[in-house]
């Protein structure tokens, strides 16, 4: 937590006699720099407010039934983002199904079984993996799941998203598991419960809410990722439900494509889709982080 000291030694607190010239200069500098930090804080908030405001205003204006229910027109300009919405739902869901068990189980190893050094090493690797530019995750997935089959496919898109999600789930879950009191584990083991059951039914279950938090953040992150999908799922103008071997559209891809078109109608669709995406990401983040606001670990 931040240090909460009383007001510092402002010169006014001292007898007037002791207030030397240099003191006044120091106080002025202090005031000025403190003012500057507040100004910097304000500067940081401006782009956030601007992005949210513009996306909301332009996005709401563009949202209509067509955007939500129709795929892009096969010929000409028009249609909607239905293919993208359905594609995002499917690919993010499949990515979640892959990344969450992998993330939780690998975090169980880090927090329950690994020695200090191994745990630190894996944590480090997870952080570094999270720092790999997402476009490179896209290329990597392309080389293993697109190139051999000579076909862009939605499955590859899901795998790329899962690779993005995995380290996020691992790190958040592992932090939560570390908070579960050791006495719970001991009590369970003392009753003769096997270790794997102790871990899954006692430790993981105790941390369930916290783990869900991490999972939701990872889902929100994956839903907004564009670069990993460019060379894997590719995007599509057709509604694709369940055909994992074919290209599939996603909301971020839809936004990217339509933002670059010279048609105002398509630009408007990009704003509409951006609003939907931003709404989802913000709601998840605010709901999830808001609960843990002020706590240092979540």
């Amino acid at each position, binding site marked *: 937590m*931040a240090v909460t000291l009383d007001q510092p030694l402002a010169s006014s607190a001292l007898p007037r006699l002791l207030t030397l010239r240099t003191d006044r200069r120091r106080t002025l500098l202090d005031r000025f*720099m403190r003012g500057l*930090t507040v100004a910097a804080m304000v500067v940081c908030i401006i782009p956030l407010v601007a992005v949210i405001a513009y996306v909301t205003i332009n996005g709401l204006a563009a949202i209509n039934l067509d955007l939500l229910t129709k795929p892009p027109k096969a010929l000409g300009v028009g249609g909607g983002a239905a293919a993208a919405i359905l594609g995002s739902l499917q690919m993010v869901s499949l990515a979640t199904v892959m990344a969450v068990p992998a993330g939780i189980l690998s975090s169980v190893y880090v927090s329950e079984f690994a020695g200090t050094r191994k745990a630190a090493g894996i944590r480090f690797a997870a952080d570094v993996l999270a720092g790999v530019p997402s476009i490179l995750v896209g290329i990597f997935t392309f080389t293993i799941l697109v190139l051999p089959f000579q076909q862009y496919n939605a499955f590859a898109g899901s795998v790329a998203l899962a690779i993005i999600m995995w380290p996020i789930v691992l790190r958040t879950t592992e932090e939560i598991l570390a908070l579960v009191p050791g006495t719970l584990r001991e009590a369970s083991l003392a009753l003769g419960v096997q270790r794997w059951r102790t871990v899954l039914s006692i430790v993981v279950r105790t941390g369930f809410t916290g783990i869900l938090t991490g999972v939701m953040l990872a889902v929100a992150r994956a839903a907004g990722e564009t670069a990993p999908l460019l060379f894997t799922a590719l995007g599509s103008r057709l509604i694709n439900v369940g055909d994992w071997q074919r290209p599939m559209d996603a909301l971020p891809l839809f936004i990217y494509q339509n933002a670059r078109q010279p048609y105002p109608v398509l630009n408007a669709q990009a704003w509409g889709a951006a609003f939907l995406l931003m709404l989802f990401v913000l709601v998840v983040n605010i709901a999830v982080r808001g609960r843990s606001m002020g706590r240092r670990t979540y």
Partner: protein
Amino acid sequence: MTIGTRARPSLTRRGSRLADRGFVVLTAGLAAGIVGLLVAIAVMLTLTSRETWQTFGVLGFLTGTTWDVVNGVYGALPFIVGTIETSLLALVIAAPIAILTAIYLAELAPGRLAVPLTFTIEILAAIPSVVIGLWGIFVLSPFLRSTVEAFLVQTFGFIPLFSGPAYGIGLFAAGVILAIMILPTIITISREVIIAVPNAQREGMLALGATRWEVITRAVLPYARSGIMGAIILGLGRALGETMAVTMVIGNKDAIPDSLFSQTQTIASKIATTFNEASVGIQTSSLIALGLVLLGITLTLNVIARLLVRRVTGGVPRRV
């Protein structure tokens, strides 16, 4: 007791031991998978870009200035330069603002403000890059063109660095949008690092009659310095690899920028815009080689940054 009943518990015990061992092995395997994945990414990018390295040589590719698809000549320099310039520009803009903000959040803001403000900054980090890019194209870049860029070109246009024309789309816009995107990274980590500075540092200075600002600059920041460096480097790492928002506002022209407002290209934006159209063979291989260069830079920076941050916070830095 019959033999049968005596045998049963031992059988199940063996079964449970096996289940336990299996479980540990399973989790260990998945944990190792994280490390394996990192290695696999590096290996696959190296293997699939072999042709480029063999044709042009490592140095030849890194210093080559032409990217000529027709004649099959590929050089990475324009994109390396574009990447470094946009990222440095972003750092120059973002780092001072971010550090001042982190100081405010960690040292000066009253508790009931500090928490929601930190929360708000974290929310900025959550907005998808493509959404920021969309805002960049239609709002930020026209705004920059008519205000900041117009002013700089008019006032300092005689210096080559500031020579026009300024389209709003280009190096400068990319730097600004990257600055916005790396602010949260630098702020949240710097804030944690500053908070981790022991209170005795502050109390000692305050007891000597120092002002709050003097405490910050002479007792807190020197202690937190390497951690803040780490935060900045992590921000740099994020800027180097950031793709979508940059791709959307940088202009996508394969040329080493000659002015602050030139349209140019970063490694990530080059890959994003041309990878799908590239024919399999040396062109794809060269794009992947570009990716490998980016991987090398970001991995190195990441490792250095995390070690720096860890030096101050002592333990494991929080997930970023």
